[in-house]
């Protein structure tokens, strides 16, 4: 395999993966769903920086997950409190952290139909740190109120809930989520993007501090790890992504 030279320009995907790796923090187990190359990059990066911790399960890959008890094991594992971080997205996401993976319009006669809720109506409640990730940052995706709640961002106090959203990462910015006040807060805007642009393209209200920093770029060491250590690992699961972003080619 060959990897990207360290002098190469920082890509958007690398920035997002670095941001997400920071959000993961010091945990034991990160699980990454299907078709999620950027979160997968972030999880593997977190593992490299943690010297093997957290354990990373890539559900897309038989090789990179340990499950031997059938399709239920992921959910049982989460229910046991053994998954600390998971990633969810939404056809729509609203300002209270509700996500919609089902449909737009009346449920019985929808105008738009998405694939379905998958495990969201469960995992959103039982995984302590759910990181919302939606690259498309527009008034179409970030809406005042979702048309269908696949899973709510918060729950009443008496409803069993060990988990929920901690942040929303888009191609423009990073929001944190305040579960007490049920709202997002603009934490940083990515290099090349503006606070006003975020406001223009966000359909929901959020807290905007007086000063919003620029999303920090990965350190040279982080970038080196991502490009030289993580990218080749990633190539086994996401060969096209690894080739496009990191220039990693798996020998045929």
């Amino acid at each position, binding site marked *: 395999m060959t990897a990207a030279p360290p002098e190469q320009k920082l890509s958007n995907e690398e920035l997002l993966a670095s941001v997400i790796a920071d959000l993961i923090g010091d945990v034991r187990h990160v699980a990454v769903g*299907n*078709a999620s190359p950027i979160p997968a990059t972030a999880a593997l990066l977190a593992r490299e920086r943690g010297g093997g911790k957290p354990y990373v399960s890539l559900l897309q890959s*038989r090789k990179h997950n340990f*499950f*031997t*008890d*059938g*399709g*239920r094991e992921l*959910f*049982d594992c989460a*229910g046991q409190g053994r998954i600390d971080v998971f990633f969810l997205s939404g056809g729509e996401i609203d300002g209270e952290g509700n996500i919609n*993976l*089902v*449909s737009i319009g009346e*449920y*019985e*006669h*929808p*105008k*738009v*139909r*998405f*694939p*379905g*809720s*998958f*495990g*969201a*109506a*469960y*995992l*959103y*409640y*039982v995984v302590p740190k759910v990181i919302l990730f939606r690259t498309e940052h527009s008034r179409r995706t970030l809406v005042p109120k979702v048309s*269908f*709640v*696949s*899973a*709510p961002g918060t*729950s*009443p106090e*008496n*409803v*069993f809930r060990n988990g929920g959203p901690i942040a929303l990462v888009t191609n423009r910015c990073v929001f944190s989520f305040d579960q007490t006040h049920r709202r997002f807060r603009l934490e940083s805007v990515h290099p090349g993007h503006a606070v006003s642009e975020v406001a223009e393209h966000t359909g929901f209200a959020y807290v905007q501090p007086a000063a919003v920093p620029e999303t920090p770029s990965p350190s040279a060491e982080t970038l080196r790890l991502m490009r030289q250590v993580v990218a080749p690992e990633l190539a086994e699961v996401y060969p096209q992504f690894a080739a496009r972003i990191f220039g990693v080619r798996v020998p045929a």
Partner: protein
Amino acid sequence: MPQIVPTLDEALASIADGCVLAVPRENSGVAMAATRALIRRGVKRLELIALPTSSLQADLLIGAGCVALIETSAVSLGEFGPAPRFTAAVIAGSIKMKDATCPALHAAFQAAEKGVPFFPLRGLIGSDVLAHRPDWRMIDNPFGNNDPIVLLPAIKPDVALFHSPMADRAGNVWIGRQRELATMAHASAKTIVTVEKIVDGDLLADATLSAGTLPGFYVDSIAVAPRGAWPLPLPDHYAWDEKHLAEYARLAASEEGFAKYLEQYVYDRRAA
């Protein structure tokens, strides 16, 4: 005790119109050759239950007009995009939709496996998934204090249908790590399996193989269908046929294209 029969149609005979049919997720061994045979036979009004999701199988059956109702957590072609015939049918209102979430389907099959009327599940409360499931109930957890919890009724399909790498002559079926296939079979009144091949020997007698074997006791009929999951993958045996799925996604985007796909890959038996 299972019958090993010479043709797909014989194996599938008990899947009548209106059958409540359980099928596995896209990467656990989907009986695609059998699915094409069902479409050729023109089965109608299936109530399809995908444990817990489906892809090409549901899209094909829906597009071909075989499905009255689907219960699932999602139907999607994954990296090949949305499932076009599913999406169109839901928007047109031509199938009845029961949206679930993955662990709810696993739990409801396990409830049937254990012979209980329901299983509890955390999560769900406050979601519109629950709001649109009048068949699910919320109770106050009797071991808690003001602690609502959802109960899911057991799912007992008429028939479970899946594809596996091998069976022995007694009808014991190797399922490996795909343990939801055992749960599906336990939960269902009948189980039909297609396999890559029939092997000599007794899978149950082998200390190593038996750990991944569904006993023939739970199986009703078996037919051999080489590459029977194609173009979907068979775990540890073959991968997705990516080129074919991309072609499907392209063709099925329109009704005309879908009809052409059916003609070429389903009705023309040489391709099945």
